[in-house]
């Protein structure tokens, strides 16, 4: 089910080049990482979807509700953690959470109770009554999360949520978000340019760059077999590669394989892709050419590799001509 759907969305700030150009995409259930370099349009996309920015063309829906016409209904069901430090002046942590819960429609008593619970949940128990303006960066990030979940939303939009946090705080924060998603069924859109963080919590990834969608995929597709193998062998490479070709095995160019040839010996290393992802033809070719196979390792793609491939590809290609790494959430829409 699509949680957020965006169709042909274009947004420009004044006369500057558009921050988003004809973007179409879907965020599906679970945790989705919205990745992109600085200035990619991630925050703009979130703000358009939430109705914080209004003058955009195209259409956006959240949980099936129109971002323009049903703005208030959407805001009852979403929580937003802005990237910038956003503090209610001269309010303690618990007072600010209670106040925002009241604005979301909770009664005063329930709002106060929720504020305490949420601040406990994010680990600010010792700082409930301290002025939020005295909080450290990490505490402010936690407070923003508490404010975002205080009215128990269905969808959470987190914009650079762990920026400025120390490693332990970052670990704790990732665990909190994972808990919200896995144990409490929240859908999370996590906007960031920190790939390792996103990789640890997200189910799906969507890559933005320069206001264009560069691709989308599910992380489990990266973790599964890619159908490609890293083959290390010993012997004469050429007969072996010819034998692979006759068996329909695609061999990637030498420059795509790190350390492809060892000039001091007969060792070689190539990335190959047998038909159907079955390594059998590789062994047959080795047997036929008396090549010693030292290692045949399935190639697993890293998020960084895919991200950089998409970003680099985006610099050279129009987005509609990109080959996405795998079918995933919003892949079709992204195309």
């Amino acid at each position, binding site marked *: 089910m699509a949680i957020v759907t965006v169709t042909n969305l274009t947004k420009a700030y004044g006369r500057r080049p558009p921050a988003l150009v004809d973007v179409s995409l879907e965020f599906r259930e679970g945790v989705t990482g919205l990745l992109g370099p600085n200035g990619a349009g991630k925050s703009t996309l979130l703000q358009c979807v939430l109705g914080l920015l209004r003058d955009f063309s195209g259409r956006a829906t959240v949980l099936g509700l129109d971002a323009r016409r049903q703005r*208030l209904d959407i805001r009852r069901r979403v929580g*937003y953690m802005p990237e910038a430090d956003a503090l209610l002046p001269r309010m303690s942590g618990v007072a600010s959470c209670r106040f925002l819960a009241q604005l979301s429609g909770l009664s005063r008593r329930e709002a106060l*109770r929720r504020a305490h619970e949420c601040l406990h949940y994010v680990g600010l128990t010792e700082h409930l009554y301290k002025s939020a303006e005295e909080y450290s960066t990490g505490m402010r990030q936690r407070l923003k999360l508490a404010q975002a979940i205080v009215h128990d939303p269905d969808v959470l939009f987190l914009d650079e949520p762990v920026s400025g946090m120390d490693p332990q705080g970052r670990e704790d924060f990732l665990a909190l978000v994972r808990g919200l998603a896995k144990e409490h069924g929240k859908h999370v859109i996590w906007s960031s340019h920190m790939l390792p963080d996103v990789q640890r919590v997200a189910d799906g990834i969507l890559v933005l760059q320069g206001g264009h969608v560069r691709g989308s995929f599910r992380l489990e597709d990266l973790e599964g077999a890619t159908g490609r193998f890293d083959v290390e062998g010993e012997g004469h490479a050429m007969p072996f590669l010819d034998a692979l070709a006759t068996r329909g095995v695609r061999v990637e160019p030498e420059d795509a394989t790190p350390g492809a040839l060892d000039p001091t010996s007969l060792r070689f290393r190539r990335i190959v892709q047998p038909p159907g992802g079955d390594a059998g033809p590789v062994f047959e070719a080795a047997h036929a050419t008396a090549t010693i196979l030292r290692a045949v390792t399935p190639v697993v793609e890293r998020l960084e590799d895919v991200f950089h491939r998409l970003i680099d590809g985006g610099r050279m290609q129009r987005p509609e001509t990109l080959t996405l790494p795998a079918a995933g959430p919003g892949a079709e829409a992204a195309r």
Partner: protein
Amino acid sequence: MTVHARGYRPLKDRRRSKGLRFVPIFREARRDAMRGVLLLVFRLLCVLLPLILIGFFLYFQSGPLSAILRQTTGGMQLDELTTARETLSIALLMFHDWTALWIVLLSLFVGAGVIADDLRTRALPLYLVRPITPIDYFLGKWLVPVSALVVYVLCPGLLLVLLAASMRPSGETWAFLVDRRDVILALLHHFAVLAVGYASLVVLVSTVARRRLSAIVLGALVFLGGSLIAGSAMGVKGPLGDAARATSLYANAQRVLQDGLGSSLPYAQRAELPSTTAAYVVTGALFVACAVAVLRRARTSEVVS
């Protein structure tokens, strides 16, 4: 049974509260604007002191009140009821005259931060992602200086009316209040013009200035500038002079009060005040400008992102 424990608890009761959505905004903004011992002392000294003094003069029919009354009547002997009525009118005009400067400062201190602080701490997106409309935000903020003026402008006036009524012989208190209901209406009318004008101006400068201190300085300059323009337009005839005199928000409120009191006292310098129409137009225009500025600001996060 545990009623509170650490951990995330799904919200079972998703019923919306029935209250008006701007009320929490107003309540929090007012609490924030009114905090501070210094401001409390300032408020009490600036308003309570004149109120006590004028109440004393009114009660004992003495001091400047009786002097002005003698000057008004040219020493002619008035009956007791007329004296009481005229003394009350003079007391009200005198109270608002004495507290004019303090009320301007109070409005600035209370209202200058209501939106400027939100802009400074980038709190606006926190409001905008909640199910409230820009109108809720505007009302919640705009009512903060208005509520302060209720306490320090409207209530003292009504207290003086009650004091005058309580001084009547036994059994005539209610009759006096009914007889002088025009005074109560005049006070309400005066308060409305003054509160709308002052609150709109301070909230407008708070929206524009984006810093509390800048808003106080800018607001003070606008108040002062208006008074200077109005002062320089004394004696200028025609709509231009009228409009220039209406740039003083205090003069606008005085115009309405004097109209309501129906007094021809020399204390009320009618010739120096703008026309009632000009007073309404300027006050209304200020309110519209304030509302447009705040609604534009609270419509989108674009200006602060």
